[in-house]
């Protein structure tokens, strides 16, 4: 029997507001039944497979001023609708926070990065999302808006569970704020994949800073695809702080990070044991690269 999976979504009502206020009003009116369409690189495949069938689609792509990368004081601000391609190519980010460009370059493939947005993928909260781990490593703060208020929330409180965030049905993600790293800083995003453009088997984001004496003064480690959501390797971060980073310390931190991962066996991308072992390898390598970059290498 020919078992055809329908690739046409269920019908929905479509809105393409031209202002943020209009979009937020629609979100409030259709609370819980509306979905925001940003790049659509996750939402549309889910709709085509009919795993998700929202009654109302609010396309925010025609709203101006939601896509930007700028500095304000000692902070980088990225608009939620900023495309991965623009993050990957941003001269500003290459100078100040190159790990964002590196992470973006690993997302999907070029066509996906031409459409896909940073806010869309964070809001989608796929545990295999690359950018989530990077924002964890950078301790990003998210600006969330509803019709009546604006609030800020740290990335650790934003991810709640698989595909679940702290966003309420009437809220949308507006901006990502990241502090400038200290002077001697470096980061790296390493990803292991089955083939080009696939979701990660495992991936690790690391960002570190060194003080004048070469002692680790900041450590951020985010893990991709090895738990119910993007995870922070908190114990490994704490272990690195205040230490001079050498091979032995990095080896031990990588071991700790692997113990903090919560991978599951899966038929496509390997056993939990394999993924945990890869977290150790990737963390070790990423920390070494980050350290080298922090030292100006």
């Amino acid at each position, binding site marked *: 029997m020919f078992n055809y999976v329908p*690739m046409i979504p269920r*019908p*929905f009502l479509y809105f*393409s507001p031209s202002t943020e206020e209009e979009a937020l009003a629609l979100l409030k009116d259709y609370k819980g039944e509306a979905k925001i369409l940003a790049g*659509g690189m996750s939402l549309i495949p889910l709709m085509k497979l009919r795993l998700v069938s929202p009654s109302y689609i609010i396309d925010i792509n025609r709203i101006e001023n939601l896509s930007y990368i700028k500095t304000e004081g000692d902070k980088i601000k990225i608009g939620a609708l900023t495309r991965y391609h623009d993050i990957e190519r941003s001269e500003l980010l290459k100078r100040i926070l190159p790990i964002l460009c590196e992470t973006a370059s690993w997302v999907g*493939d070029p*066509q996906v990065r*031409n*459409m896909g947005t940073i806010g869309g993928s964070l809001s989608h909260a796929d545990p295999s999302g690359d950018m989530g781990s990077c924002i964890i490593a950078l301790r990003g703060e998210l600006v969330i808006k509803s019709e009546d208020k604006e609030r800020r929330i740290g990335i650790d409180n934003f991810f709640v569970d698989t595909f679940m965030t702290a966003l309420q049905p009437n809220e949308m993600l507006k901006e990502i704020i990241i502090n400038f790293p200290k002077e001697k800083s470096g980061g790296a995003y390493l990803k292991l994949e089955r083939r080009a453009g696939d979701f990660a088997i495992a991936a690790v984001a690391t960002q570190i800073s060194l003080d004048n004496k070469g002692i680790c003064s900041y450590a951020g480690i985010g893990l991709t695809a090895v738990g119910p959501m993007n995870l922070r390797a908190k114990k490994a971060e704490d272990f690195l702080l205040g230490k001079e980073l050498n091979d032995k310390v990095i080896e031990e931190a990588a071991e700790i990070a692997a113990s903090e991962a919560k991978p599951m066996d899966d038929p496509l991308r390997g056993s939990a044991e394999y993924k945990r072992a890869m977290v150790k390898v990737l963390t070790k390598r990423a920390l070494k690269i980050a350290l080298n970059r922090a030292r100006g290498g």
Partner: protein
Amino acid sequence: MTTTATKAEVKLYHIKVNVNGVDYEHDVEPRLLLVHYIRDVLGLTGTHIGCDTSNCGACTVILNGKSVKSCTMFAVQANGTKILTIEGLAKNGELHPLQKAFWENHALQCGFCTPGLIMQAYWLLQENPNPTEEEIRKGISGNLCRCTGYQNIVKAIMAAAKEMKR
């Protein structure tokens, strides 16, 4: 039991697009995918549907200067945009340098992936007119070819880059 909207609830949206220099206007259902609009409504069947899951890139078109997978976009999203498909590349019966290079370098066997690969290469060369072999391979990593092993595709794109600089 799942419920679906009845026909009466279906609202059509008026869209205007410019495809390969020609203006079109249609009333479409919001759930109509851009690739179905291009193929079934406009009759431009050069753009192919391969995997229908945004993996293979056969449906790649240029939308407002950027390459996108038209199977993962709604036609309503393209309202007001300029689209270039494989049919828009040749000018006055003269093949585009990319088309010529694919032909001359035997960069296709069955040809199914070719329109998508050529459109992606078109975008790639606009972004980076001087790509290295590695940059080409990364640039076409969102397009699958099951025949060629990519070697001749990469060669063709390099040849076209050279030709287009002349």
